[in-house]
Protein backbone atom coordinates (compact mmCIF):
# COMPACT_ATOMS: atom_id res chain seq x y z
CA UNK A 1 0.00 0.00 0.00
CA UNK A 2 2.88 2.33 0.78
CA UNK A 3 4.07 1.78 -2.81
CA UNK A 4 0.80 3.13 -4.13
CA UNK A 5 0.84 6.09 -1.80
CA UNK A 6 4.41 7.03 -2.66
CA UNK A 7 3.55 6.81 -6.36
CA UNK A 8 0.62 9.17 -5.86
CA UNK A 9 2.81 11.55 -3.87
CA UNK A 10 5.55 11.49 -6.52
CA UNK A 11 3.05 12.00 -9.32
CA UNK A 12 1.41 14.92 -7.47
CA UNK A 13 4.82 16.50 -6.94
CA UNK A 14 5.61 16.15 -10.63
CA UNK A 15 2.26 17.73 -11.48
CA UNK A 16 2.99 20.68 -9.19
CA UNK A 17 6.43 21.09 -10.76
CA UNK A 18 4.92 20.97 -14.23
CA UNK A 19 2.40 23.65 -13.28
CA UNK A 20 5.19 25.90 -11.99
CA UNK A 21 7.21 25.19 -15.14
CA UNK A 22 4.28 26.16 -17.37
CA UNK A 23 3.83 29.46 -15.52
CA UNK A 24 7.57 30.22 -15.62
CA UNK A 25 7.86 29.28 -19.29
CA UNK A 26 4.95 31.50 -20.25
CA UNK A 27 6.36 34.38 -18.24
CA UNK A 28 9.88 33.88 -19.64
CA UNK A 29 8.48 34.57 -23.08
CA UNK A 30 8.38 38.35 -22.64
CA UNK A 31 11.82 38.29 -21.04
CA UNK A 32 13.21 36.49 -24.08
CA UNK A 33 12.36 39.42 -26.34
CA UNK A 34 15.49 41.00 -27.71
CA UNK A 35 16.10 44.60 -26.63
CA UNK A 36 13.21 46.67 -25.32
CA UNK A 37 10.12 44.48 -25.06
CA UNK A 38 7.77 47.44 -25.50
CA UNK A 39 9.43 48.48 -28.78
CA UNK A 40 9.45 44.90 -30.03
CA UNK A 41 5.75 44.41 -29.22
CA UNK A 42 4.68 47.68 -30.82
CA UNK A 43 5.81 46.05 -34.06
CA UNK A 44 4.38 47.77 -37.10
CA UNK A 45 3.21 50.91 -35.30
CA UNK A 46 6.29 52.03 -33.34
CA UNK A 47 5.00 55.47 -32.33
CA UNK A 48 6.26 56.65 -28.92
CA UNK A 49 2.77 56.92 -27.39
CA UNK A 50 1.98 53.30 -28.14
CA UNK A 51 5.36 52.11 -26.86
CA UNK A 52 4.77 54.08 -23.66
CA UNK A 53 1.28 52.60 -23.31
CA UNK A 54 2.64 49.06 -23.66
CA UNK A 55 5.42 49.78 -21.17
CA UNK A 56 2.83 51.12 -18.76
CA UNK A 57 0.39 48.25 -19.24
CA UNK A 58 3.02 45.56 -18.74
CA UNK A 59 4.96 47.38 -15.97
CA UNK A 60 8.13 46.89 -17.97
CA UNK A 61 10.05 49.43 -15.88
CA UNK A 62 9.95 47.22 -12.82
CA UNK A 63 12.40 44.35 -12.28
CA UNK A 64 11.38 41.00 -13.75
CA UNK A 65 11.10 39.12 -10.47
CA UNK A 66 8.64 41.67 -9.06
CA UNK A 67 6.49 41.42 -12.17
CA UNK A 68 6.61 37.63 -12.02
CA UNK A 69 5.53 37.68 -8.37
CA UNK A 70 2.67 40.07 -9.13
CA UNK A 71 1.54 38.13 -12.18
CA UNK A 72 1.67 34.77 -10.39
CA UNK A 73 -0.21 36.22 -7.39
CA UNK A 74 -2.81 37.58 -9.80
CA UNK A 75 -3.18 34.17 -11.46
CA UNK A 76 -3.95 32.61 -8.07
CA UNK A 77 -6.84 35.05 -7.69
CA UNK A 78 -8.04 34.53 -11.24
CA UNK A 79 -6.66 37.89 -12.37
CA UNK A 80 -4.94 37.39 -15.74
CA UNK A 81 -4.01 41.02 -16.45
CA UNK A 82 -5.36 43.27 -19.20
CA UNK A 83 -5.19 43.07 -22.96
CA UNK A 84 -2.74 45.35 -24.79
CA UNK A 85 -5.01 45.66 -27.80
CA UNK A 86 -8.32 46.55 -26.14
CA UNK A 87 -7.57 47.24 -22.48
CA UNK A 88 -10.21 44.71 -21.45
CA UNK A 89 -9.34 42.19 -18.73
CA UNK A 90 -7.92 38.91 -20.09
CA UNK A 91 -10.31 37.00 -17.82
CA UNK A 92 -13.21 38.42 -19.88
CA UNK A 93 -11.66 37.09 -23.10
CA UNK A 94 -11.36 33.66 -21.51
CA UNK A 95 -14.92 33.57 -20.17
CA UNK A 96 -16.27 34.73 -23.55
CA UNK A 97 -14.47 32.03 -25.50
CA UNK A 98 -14.97 29.25 -22.99
CA UNK A 99 -18.54 28.32 -23.96
CA UNK A 100 -18.08 27.22 -27.59
CA UNK A 101 -14.75 25.53 -26.86
CA UNK A 102 -16.13 23.57 -23.89
CA UNK A 103 -19.14 22.56 -25.97
CA UNK A 104 -16.90 21.24 -28.78
CA UNK A 105 -14.59 19.45 -26.35
CA UNK A 106 -17.43 17.92 -24.33
CA UNK A 107 -19.28 16.67 -27.41
CA UNK A 108 -16.07 15.21 -28.78
CA UNK A 109 -15.16 13.37 -25.58
CA UNK A 110 -18.72 12.09 -25.12
CA UNK A 111 -18.69 10.61 -28.64
CA UNK A 112 -15.03 9.59 -28.56
CA UNK A 113 -15.31 7.05 -25.76
CA UNK A 114 -18.11 4.84 -27.15
CA UNK A 115 -16.89 5.05 -30.77
CA UNK A 116 -13.25 4.41 -29.89
CA UNK A 117 -14.01 1.50 -27.57
CA UNK A 118 -16.66 0.13 -29.90
CA UNK A 119 -14.33 0.05 -32.92
CA UNK A 120 -11.47 -1.38 -30.85
CA UNK A 121 -13.58 -4.19 -29.35
CA UNK A 122 -15.12 -4.92 -32.76
CA UNK A 123 -11.70 -5.25 -34.38
CA UNK A 124 -10.35 -7.36 -31.51
CA UNK A 125 -13.32 -9.77 -31.65
CA UNK A 126 -12.63 -10.42 -35.31
CA UNK A 127 -8.84 -10.21 -35.01
CA UNK A 128 -7.12 -11.20 -38.24
CA UNK A 129 -10.32 -11.28 -40.27
CA UNK A 130 -11.55 -8.84 -42.91
CA UNK A 131 -13.38 -6.48 -40.55
CA UNK A 132 -10.32 -6.20 -38.30
CA UNK A 133 -8.05 -5.49 -41.26
CA UNK A 134 -10.50 -2.89 -42.50
CA UNK A 135 -10.78 -1.10 -39.14
CA UNK A 136 -7.02 -1.33 -38.56
CA UNK A 137 -6.03 0.09 -41.94
CA UNK A 138 -8.61 2.88 -41.92
CA UNK A 139 -7.69 3.97 -38.38
CA UNK A 140 -3.99 3.82 -39.26
CA UNK A 141 -4.51 5.98 -42.32
CA UNK A 142 -6.86 8.57 -40.79
CA UNK A 143 -4.74 8.81 -37.63
CA UNK A 144 -2.03 10.78 -39.45
CA UNK A 145 -4.22 13.28 -41.33
CA UNK A 146 -3.94 16.90 -40.15
CA UNK A 147 -7.34 18.28 -39.11
CA UNK A 148 -7.21 21.24 -41.47
CA UNK A 149 -6.74 19.08 -44.58
CA UNK A 150 -9.55 16.70 -43.61
CA UNK A 151 -11.70 19.68 -42.60
CA UNK A 152 -11.51 21.56 -45.91
CA UNK A 153 -12.21 18.39 -47.87
CA UNK A 154 -15.31 17.66 -45.79
CA UNK A 155 -16.46 21.26 -46.26
CA UNK A 156 -15.93 21.01 -50.02
CA UNK A 157 -17.86 17.78 -50.38
CA UNK A 158 -20.54 17.85 -47.66
CA UNK A 159 -21.20 21.58 -47.46
CA UNK A 160 -20.47 23.04 -50.88
CA UNK A 161 -21.06 20.19 -53.34
CA UNK A 162 -23.89 18.37 -51.57
CA UNK A 163 -25.21 21.28 -49.51
CA UNK A 164 -26.07 19.07 -46.52
CA UNK A 165 -24.38 21.13 -43.82
CA UNK A 166 -23.40 24.78 -43.31
CA UNK A 167 -19.73 25.35 -44.31
CA UNK A 168 -18.88 27.59 -41.33
CA UNK A 169 -20.43 28.84 -38.10
CA UNK A 170 -20.55 32.42 -39.41
CA UNK A 171 -23.89 34.00 -38.62
CA UNK A 172 -24.90 31.54 -35.91
CA UNK A 173 -23.61 33.53 -32.90
CA UNK A 174 -22.18 31.85 -29.82
CA UNK A 175 -25.20 29.70 -29.00
CA UNK A 176 -24.10 26.82 -31.19
CA UNK A 177 -26.17 24.22 -29.37
CA UNK A 178 -29.31 25.79 -30.86
CA UNK A 179 -27.96 24.95 -34.34
CA UNK A 180 -26.73 21.35 -34.18
CA UNK A 181 -26.06 21.22 -37.93
CA UNK A 182 -23.22 23.72 -37.47
CA UNK A 183 -21.53 21.38 -35.00
CA UNK A 184 -21.51 18.24 -37.14
CA UNK A 185 -18.44 19.01 -39.26
CA UNK A 186 -16.27 20.48 -36.46
CA UNK A 187 -16.97 17.55 -34.12
CA UNK A 188 -16.40 15.05 -36.92
CA UNK A 189 -13.00 16.57 -37.68
CA UNK A 190 -12.08 16.80 -33.99
CA UNK A 191 -12.99 13.14 -33.51
CA UNK A 192 -10.98 11.83 -36.46
CA UNK A 193 -7.54 11.45 -34.86
CA UNK A 194 -8.39 10.56 -31.23
CA UNK A 195 -10.94 7.92 -32.30
CA UNK A 196 -8.32 6.18 -34.42
CA UNK A 197 -5.65 6.11 -31.76
CA UNK A 198 -8.09 5.02 -29.04
CA UNK A 199 -9.54 2.26 -31.24
CA UNK A 200 -6.06 0.95 -32.10
CA UNK A 201 -5.05 0.97 -28.47
CA UNK A 202 -8.19 -0.78 -27.26
CA UNK A 203 -7.82 -3.36 -30.03
CA UNK A 204 -4.20 -4.10 -29.10
CA UNK A 205 -5.09 -4.36 -25.39
CA UNK A 206 -8.11 -6.59 -26.05
CA UNK A 207 -6.19 -8.92 -28.37
CA UNK A 208 -3.52 -9.35 -25.70
CA UNK A 209 -6.10 -9.82 -22.95
CA UNK A 210 -8.18 -12.33 -24.92
CA UNK A 211 -5.07 -14.45 -25.50
CA UNK A 212 -3.89 -14.16 -21.89
CA UNK A 213 -3.99 -17.27 -19.64
CA UNK A 214 -6.64 -15.80 -17.35
CA UNK A 215 -9.26 -15.37 -20.08
CA UNK A 216 -8.47 -18.81 -21.50
CA UNK A 217 -8.95 -20.16 -17.99
CA UNK A 218 -12.24 -18.31 -17.56
CA UNK A 219 -13.49 -19.80 -20.81
CA UNK A 220 -12.43 -23.26 -19.71
CA UNK A 221 -14.65 -22.81 -16.66
CA UNK A 222 -17.53 -22.13 -18.98
CA UNK A 223 -17.90 -18.41 -18.31
CA UNK A 224 -20.01 -16.89 -21.08
CA UNK A 225 -18.07 -15.30 -23.94
CA UNK A 226 -19.68 -11.91 -23.50
CA UNK A 227 -18.74 -11.86 -19.82
CA UNK A 228 -15.16 -12.88 -20.56
CA UNK A 229 -14.94 -10.10 -23.10
CA UNK A 230 -16.39 -7.23 -21.12
CA UNK A 231 -15.89 -8.17 -17.48
CA UNK A 232 -12.46 -9.76 -17.74
CA UNK A 233 -10.64 -8.74 -20.92
CA UNK A 234 -11.79 -5.12 -21.34
CA UNK A 235 -10.55 -3.86 -17.94
CA UNK A 236 -7.09 -5.13 -18.89
CA UNK A 237 -7.17 -2.91 -21.95
CA UNK A 238 -8.36 0.06 -19.90
CA UNK A 239 -5.16 1.31 -18.31
CA UNK A 240 -3.39 2.32 -21.52
CA UNK A 241 -6.67 3.64 -22.90
CA UNK A 242 -7.20 5.91 -19.89
CA UNK A 243 -3.78 7.42 -20.49
CA UNK A 244 -4.55 7.81 -24.15
CA UNK A 245 -7.70 9.72 -23.26
CA UNK A 246 -5.57 12.24 -21.39
CA UNK A 247 -3.02 12.49 -24.19
CA UNK A 248 -6.01 13.21 -26.37
CA UNK A 249 -6.37 16.48 -24.47
CA UNK A 250 -3.19 17.66 -26.16
CA UNK A 251 -4.64 16.71 -29.53
CA UNK A 252 -8.03 18.16 -28.73
CA UNK A 253 -6.30 21.42 -27.92
CA UNK A 254 -4.37 21.43 -31.22
CA UNK A 255 -7.53 20.28 -32.98
CA UNK A 256 -9.76 22.86 -31.33
CA UNK A 257 -7.47 25.70 -32.42
CA UNK A 258 -7.44 24.47 -36.02
CA UNK A 259 -11.13 23.59 -36.14
CA UNK A 260 -12.21 26.92 -34.70
CA UNK A 261 -10.08 28.72 -37.27
CA UNK A 262 -11.47 26.55 -40.05
CA UNK A 263 -15.15 26.83 -39.16
CA UNK A 264 -14.95 30.37 -37.71
CA UNK A 265 -16.19 29.37 -34.26
CA UNK A 266 -15.73 32.12 -31.64
CA UNK A 267 -14.02 29.97 -28.98
CA UNK A 268 -10.75 30.05 -27.06
CA UNK A 269 -8.75 28.88 -30.08
CA UNK A 270 -9.94 31.84 -32.13
CA UNK A 271 -9.17 34.19 -29.23
CA UNK A 272 -5.66 32.71 -29.02
CA UNK A 273 -4.99 32.98 -32.76
CA UNK A 274 -6.24 36.58 -32.85
CA UNK A 275 -4.05 37.48 -29.87
CA UNK A 276 -1.04 35.82 -31.54
CA UNK A 277 -1.68 37.81 -34.71
CA UNK A 278 -2.02 41.09 -32.75
CA UNK A 279 0.95 40.22 -30.50
CA UNK A 280 -1.34 40.78 -27.53
CA UNK A 281 1.05 39.13 -25.08
CA UNK A 282 -1.06 39.27 -21.88
CA UNK A 283 -3.97 37.50 -23.62
CA UNK A 284 -1.63 34.86 -25.10
CA UNK A 285 -0.04 34.33 -21.69
CA UNK A 286 -3.37 34.02 -19.91
CA UNK A 287 -4.69 31.48 -22.40
CA UNK A 288 -1.41 29.56 -22.38
CA UNK A 289 -1.56 29.24 -18.60
CA UNK A 290 -5.17 28.02 -18.73
CA UNK A 291 -4.45 25.46 -21.47
CA UNK A 292 -1.14 24.38 -19.94
CA UNK A 293 -2.49 23.86 -16.42
CA UNK A 294 -5.52 22.03 -17.81
CA UNK A 295 -3.22 19.63 -19.66
CA UNK A 296 -1.12 19.03 -16.55
CA UNK A 297 -4.17 18.31 -14.38
CA UNK A 298 -5.80 15.96 -16.90
CA UNK A 299 -2.57 14.02 -17.46
CA UNK A 300 -2.18 13.74 -13.72
CA UNK A 301 -5.70 12.38 -13.35
CA UNK A 302 -5.18 9.88 -16.15
CA UNK A 303 -1.93 8.59 -14.68
CA UNK A 304 -3.61 8.10 -11.32
CA UNK A 305 -6.53 6.24 -12.96
CA UNK A 306 -4.15 4.11 -15.00
CA UNK A 307 -2.17 3.32 -11.88
CA UNK A 308 -5.36 2.29 -10.09
CA UNK A 309 -6.20 -0.19 -12.89
CA UNK A 310 -2.70 -1.55 -13.43
CA UNK A 311 -0.52 -0.75 -10.43
CA UNK A 312 2.47 -2.55 -11.91
CA UNK A 313 2.53 -0.76 -15.24
CA UNK A 314 5.21 1.85 -14.60
CA UNK A 315 3.49 5.02 -15.63
CA UNK A 316 5.35 8.33 -15.74
CA UNK A 317 7.28 9.51 -12.66
Amino acid at each position, binding site marked *: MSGLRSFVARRLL*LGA*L*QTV*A*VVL*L*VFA*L*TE*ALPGDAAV*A*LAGDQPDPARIEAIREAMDLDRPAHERLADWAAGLLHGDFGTSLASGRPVGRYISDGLGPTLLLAALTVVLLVPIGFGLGVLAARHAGRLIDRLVS*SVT*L*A*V*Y*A*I*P*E*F*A*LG*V*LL*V*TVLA*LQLGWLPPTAVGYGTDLLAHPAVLVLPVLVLLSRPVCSLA*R*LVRAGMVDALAAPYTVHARRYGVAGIRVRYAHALPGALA*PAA*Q*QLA*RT*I*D*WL*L*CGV*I*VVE*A*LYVIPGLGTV*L*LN*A*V*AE*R*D*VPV*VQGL*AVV*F*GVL*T*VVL*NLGADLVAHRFAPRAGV*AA
Partner: protein
Amino acid sequence: MRFTGRFALGVAVIGVPLVLALLGPLFAGDPGPRATSFTLGDGHWLGTDFVGRDVWQQVLHGGRPVVVTALAATALAYAVALPLGLLSALTHRRWLEELLMRPLDVLLAVPSLLLILLVASVFEPGAVGLALLVAAVNIPDAARIVRAAAAEAAARPAVEALRMQGETWWRMAVGYVGRATLRTLAADAGVRLTGVLYLVATAAFLGVGVAPDAADWAVMVDRNRIGLAVQPWAVVVPALLIIALTTGSNLLFDAALDQRGTAASSHRSTDKERRP
Protein backbone atom coordinates in the same frame (compact mmCIF):
# COMPACT_ATOMS: atom_id res chain seq x y z
CA MET B 1 2.69 -11.59 -48.25
CA ARG B 2 0.20 -9.19 -46.75
CA PHE B 3 3.02 -7.13 -45.32
CA THR B 4 4.68 -6.60 -48.69
CA GLY B 5 1.27 -5.56 -50.02
CA ARG B 6 0.88 -2.98 -47.29
CA PHE B 7 4.41 -1.79 -47.85
CA ALA B 8 3.66 -1.29 -51.55
CA LEU B 9 0.46 0.58 -50.67
CA GLY B 10 2.43 2.92 -48.40
CA VAL B 11 5.03 3.56 -51.11
CA ALA B 12 2.30 4.20 -53.68
CA VAL B 13 0.42 6.65 -51.45
CA ILE B 14 3.48 8.64 -50.42
CA GLY B 15 5.09 8.45 -53.87
CA VAL B 16 3.07 11.16 -55.63
CA PRO B 17 3.44 13.94 -53.02
CA LEU B 18 7.08 13.05 -52.35
CA VAL B 19 8.08 13.15 -56.02
CA LEU B 20 6.15 16.41 -56.49
CA ALA B 21 7.79 17.91 -53.43
CA LEU B 22 11.34 16.95 -54.32
CA LEU B 23 11.31 17.32 -58.11
CA GLY B 24 8.42 19.75 -58.59
CA PRO B 25 10.46 22.97 -58.40
CA LEU B 26 12.72 21.70 -61.22
CA PHE B 27 9.79 21.40 -63.62
CA ALA B 28 7.82 24.46 -62.55
CA GLY B 29 9.31 26.78 -65.15
CA ASP B 30 8.62 30.50 -65.31
CA PRO B 31 5.77 31.85 -63.17
CA GLY B 32 4.27 33.80 -66.08
CA PRO B 33 2.02 36.87 -65.70
CA ARG B 34 -0.63 36.98 -62.99
CA ALA B 35 -4.20 36.44 -64.05
CA THR B 36 -7.50 37.23 -62.31
CA SER B 37 -8.02 35.61 -58.89
CA PHE B 38 -9.94 32.35 -58.64
CA THR B 39 -10.57 31.63 -62.30
CA LEU B 40 -10.83 28.25 -63.97
CA GLY B 41 -9.47 27.33 -67.41
CA ASP B 42 -7.69 29.99 -69.52
CA GLY B 43 -4.59 27.84 -69.88
CA HIS B 44 -4.39 27.21 -66.14
CA TRP B 45 -5.51 23.62 -65.85
CA LEU B 46 -5.96 23.87 -62.07
CA GLY B 47 -7.11 27.48 -62.27
CA THR B 48 -5.62 30.46 -60.41
CA ASP B 49 -5.25 31.18 -56.69
CA PHE B 50 -6.22 34.13 -54.46
CA VAL B 51 -3.74 36.52 -56.07
CA GLY B 52 -4.09 35.14 -59.58
CA ARG B 53 -1.08 32.81 -59.67
CA ASP B 54 -1.22 29.49 -61.50
CA VAL B 55 -2.28 26.80 -58.98
CA TRP B 56 -0.36 23.98 -60.69
CA GLN B 57 2.86 25.97 -60.42
CA GLN B 58 2.22 26.69 -56.77
CA VAL B 59 1.57 22.99 -56.23
CA LEU B 60 4.91 22.14 -57.87
CA HIS B 61 6.73 24.59 -55.60
CA GLY B 62 4.69 24.05 -52.44
CA GLY B 63 5.73 20.59 -51.32
CA ARG B 64 9.39 21.20 -50.78
CA PRO B 65 9.07 23.52 -47.74
CA VAL B 66 6.78 21.04 -45.94
CA VAL B 67 9.00 18.02 -46.58
CA VAL B 68 12.34 19.74 -46.02
CA THR B 69 11.21 21.46 -42.80
CA ALA B 70 9.85 18.17 -41.45
CA LEU B 71 13.02 16.24 -42.29
CA ALA B 72 15.23 18.94 -40.80
CA ALA B 73 13.13 19.09 -37.62
CA THR B 74 13.27 15.31 -37.16
CA ALA B 75 17.04 15.25 -37.71
CA LEU B 76 17.52 18.17 -35.30
CA ALA B 77 15.39 16.53 -32.61
CA TYR B 78 17.57 13.42 -32.75
CA ALA B 79 20.78 15.44 -32.85
CA VAL B 80 19.89 16.65 -29.35
CA ALA B 81 17.93 13.65 -28.05
CA LEU B 82 20.55 11.05 -29.01
CA PRO B 83 23.45 12.34 -26.88
CA LEU B 84 21.05 13.24 -24.06
CA GLY B 85 19.45 9.81 -23.97
CA LEU B 86 22.70 7.86 -24.43
CA LEU B 87 24.48 9.83 -21.75
CA SER B 88 21.72 9.45 -19.18
CA ALA B 89 21.35 5.72 -19.91
CA LEU B 90 25.07 5.01 -19.64
CA THR B 91 26.09 7.21 -16.77
CA HIS B 92 26.42 5.65 -13.35
CA ARG B 93 25.86 8.93 -11.64
CA ARG B 94 22.28 9.04 -10.55
CA TRP B 95 22.23 12.83 -10.15
CA LEU B 96 23.43 13.35 -13.73
CA GLU B 97 20.64 11.15 -15.06
CA GLU B 98 18.05 13.05 -13.01
CA LEU B 99 19.54 16.36 -14.13
CA LEU B 100 19.30 15.39 -17.79
CA MET B 101 15.90 13.68 -17.82
CA ARG B 102 13.74 15.39 -15.17
CA PRO B 103 13.50 18.77 -16.93
CA LEU B 104 12.25 16.90 -19.99
CA ASP B 105 9.46 15.26 -17.96
CA VAL B 106 8.37 18.72 -16.93
CA LEU B 107 8.45 19.97 -20.54
CA LEU B 108 6.36 17.05 -21.78
CA ALA B 109 3.38 18.68 -20.09
CA VAL B 110 3.19 21.63 -22.49
CA PRO B 111 0.95 20.99 -25.52
CA SER B 112 3.06 21.15 -28.68
CA LEU B 113 1.01 23.52 -30.80
CA LEU B 114 0.54 25.84 -27.81
CA LEU B 115 4.31 26.16 -27.38
CA ILE B 116 4.74 26.93 -31.07
CA LEU B 117 2.00 29.58 -31.00
CA LEU B 118 3.44 31.08 -27.81
CA VAL B 119 6.81 31.63 -29.43
CA ALA B 120 5.19 32.82 -32.65
CA SER B 121 3.32 35.54 -30.75
CA VAL B 122 6.59 37.15 -29.71
CA PHE B 123 9.08 36.29 -32.45
CA GLU B 124 8.40 35.89 -36.11
CA PRO B 125 10.02 32.56 -36.85
CA GLY B 126 10.94 31.81 -40.47
CA ALA B 127 11.24 28.34 -41.94
CA VAL B 128 14.38 27.72 -39.88
CA GLY B 129 12.65 28.93 -36.74
CA LEU B 130 9.71 26.61 -37.39
CA ALA B 131 12.07 23.65 -37.83
CA LEU B 132 13.83 24.53 -34.57
CA LEU B 133 10.53 24.87 -32.72
CA VAL B 134 9.11 21.59 -33.98
CA ALA B 135 12.41 19.89 -33.15
CA ALA B 136 12.36 21.34 -29.62
CA VAL B 137 8.83 20.07 -29.07
CA ASN B 138 9.94 16.56 -30.05
CA ILE B 139 13.13 16.40 -27.98
CA PRO B 140 11.64 15.32 -24.59
CA ASP B 141 9.83 12.32 -25.99
CA ALA B 142 12.65 11.29 -28.33
CA ALA B 143 15.21 11.50 -25.52
CA ARG B 144 13.05 9.27 -23.32
CA ILE B 145 12.84 6.64 -26.04
CA VAL B 146 16.60 6.78 -26.72
CA ARG B 147 17.25 6.42 -23.00
CA ALA B 148 14.89 3.45 -22.63
CA ALA B 149 16.37 1.64 -25.63
CA ALA B 150 19.96 2.39 -24.59
CA ALA B 151 19.36 1.37 -20.97
CA GLU B 152 18.10 -2.01 -22.18
CA ALA B 153 21.18 -2.51 -24.38
CA ALA B 154 23.57 -1.27 -21.69
CA ALA B 155 22.30 -3.92 -19.26
CA ARG B 156 23.32 -6.77 -21.58
CA PRO B 157 26.22 -9.08 -20.62
CA ALA B 158 28.10 -7.97 -23.74
CA VAL B 159 28.57 -4.51 -22.24
CA GLU B 160 29.85 -6.09 -19.02
CA ALA B 161 32.34 -8.09 -21.08
CA LEU B 162 33.49 -4.97 -22.93
CA ARG B 163 33.93 -3.20 -19.63
CA MET B 164 36.00 -6.03 -18.17
CA GLN B 165 38.18 -6.01 -21.25
CA GLY B 166 38.92 -2.39 -20.46
CA GLU B 167 37.33 -0.95 -23.60
CA THR B 168 36.94 2.82 -23.64
CA TRP B 169 33.65 4.45 -22.68
CA TRP B 170 33.35 5.79 -26.21
CA ARG B 171 33.63 2.32 -27.78
CA MET B 172 30.99 0.96 -25.44
CA ALA B 173 28.60 3.90 -25.79
CA VAL B 174 28.78 4.48 -29.52
CA GLY B 175 30.25 1.22 -30.83
CA TYR B 176 27.98 -1.16 -28.99
CA VAL B 177 25.03 0.50 -27.24
CA GLY B 178 24.47 3.06 -29.96
CA ARG B 179 24.48 0.41 -32.65
CA ALA B 180 22.25 -1.94 -30.66
CA THR B 181 19.58 0.73 -30.30
CA LEU B 182 19.60 1.67 -33.99
CA ARG B 183 16.70 -0.59 -34.89
CA THR B 184 14.37 0.77 -32.23
CA LEU B 185 15.38 4.29 -33.14
CA ALA B 186 14.75 3.72 -36.85
CA ALA B 187 11.22 2.62 -35.98
CA ASP B 188 10.73 5.62 -33.72
CA ALA B 189 12.11 7.99 -36.36
CA GLY B 190 9.46 6.85 -38.81
CA VAL B 191 6.64 7.41 -36.35
CA ARG B 192 8.13 10.71 -35.31
CA LEU B 193 8.44 11.94 -38.90
CA THR B 194 4.69 11.39 -39.36
CA GLY B 195 3.99 13.46 -36.24
CA VAL B 196 6.43 16.15 -37.35
CA LEU B 197 4.81 16.36 -40.78
CA TYR B 198 1.48 16.86 -39.04
CA LEU B 199 2.85 19.61 -36.83
CA VAL B 200 4.77 21.43 -39.59
CA ALA B 201 1.74 21.44 -41.89
CA THR B 202 -0.63 22.55 -39.13
CA ALA B 203 1.69 25.36 -38.00
CA ALA B 204 2.05 26.56 -41.59
CA PHE B 205 -1.75 26.45 -41.98
CA LEU B 206 -2.02 28.71 -38.92
CA GLY B 207 0.57 31.05 -40.45
CA VAL B 208 3.57 30.22 -38.23
CA GLY B 209 6.96 30.29 -39.95
CA VAL B 210 5.68 31.08 -43.43
CA ALA B 211 5.09 34.19 -45.53
CA PRO B 212 1.37 34.94 -46.07
CA ASP B 213 1.67 34.28 -49.81
CA ALA B 214 4.24 31.48 -49.64
CA ALA B 215 4.15 28.60 -52.11
CA ASP B 216 3.46 25.94 -49.48
CA TRP B 217 0.69 23.34 -49.60
CA ALA B 218 -0.59 24.19 -46.11
CA VAL B 219 -0.54 27.94 -46.81
CA MET B 220 -2.35 27.34 -50.09
CA VAL B 221 -5.14 25.53 -48.23
CA ASP B 222 -5.46 28.41 -45.79
CA ARG B 223 -5.26 31.33 -48.20
CA ASN B 224 -7.42 29.89 -50.97
CA ARG B 225 -10.22 28.88 -48.60
CA ILE B 226 -12.09 32.14 -49.27
CA GLY B 227 -12.57 31.06 -52.89
CA LEU B 228 -13.57 27.49 -52.07
CA ALA B 229 -17.04 27.85 -53.56
CA VAL B 230 -15.71 29.33 -56.82
CA GLN B 231 -12.42 27.54 -57.38
CA PRO B 232 -12.13 24.44 -55.16
CA TRP B 233 -9.01 23.03 -56.91
CA ALA B 234 -6.70 25.59 -55.29
CA VAL B 235 -7.65 24.05 -51.92
CA VAL B 236 -8.52 20.45 -52.72
CA VAL B 237 -5.30 19.57 -54.58
CA PRO B 238 -2.85 20.75 -51.87
CA ALA B 239 -5.09 19.29 -49.13
CA LEU B 240 -5.12 15.90 -50.87
CA LEU B 241 -1.35 16.04 -51.32
CA ILE B 242 -0.84 16.73 -47.60
CA ILE B 243 -3.19 13.87 -46.72
CA ALA B 244 -1.30 11.53 -49.08
CA LEU B 245 2.00 12.63 -47.57
CA THR B 246 1.07 12.09 -43.91
CA THR B 247 -1.07 8.98 -44.45
CA GLY B 248 1.51 7.44 -46.78
CA SER B 249 4.35 7.95 -44.34
CA ASN B 250 2.29 6.42 -41.53
CA LEU B 251 1.30 3.38 -43.64
CA LEU B 252 4.84 2.94 -44.94
CA PHE B 253 6.56 3.07 -41.56
CA ASP B 254 3.91 0.88 -39.93
CA ALA B 255 4.40 -1.76 -42.63
CA ALA B 256 8.19 -1.51 -42.33
CA LEU B 257 7.86 -1.90 -38.57
CA ASP B 258 5.70 -5.01 -38.91
CA GLN B 259 8.08 -6.54 -41.40
CA ARG B 260 10.95 -6.34 -38.97
CA GLY B 261 8.71 -7.87 -36.33
CA THR B 262 11.30 -7.68 -33.56
CA ALA B 263 10.39 -7.64 -29.91
CA ALA B 264 11.65 -4.09 -29.67
CA SER B 265 9.52 -2.78 -32.50
CA SER B 266 6.35 -4.51 -31.34
CA HIS B 267 6.88 -2.84 -28.01
CA ARG B 268 7.22 0.47 -29.78
CA SER B 269 4.09 0.01 -31.84
CA THR B 270 1.96 0.10 -28.72
CA ASP B 271 4.01 2.92 -27.32
CA LYS B 272 3.59 5.20 -30.30
CA GLU B 273 -0.17 5.27 -29.93
CA ARG B 274 0.26 6.76 -26.53
CA ARG B 275 2.42 9.56 -27.75
CA PRO B 276 0.80 12.99 -27.79
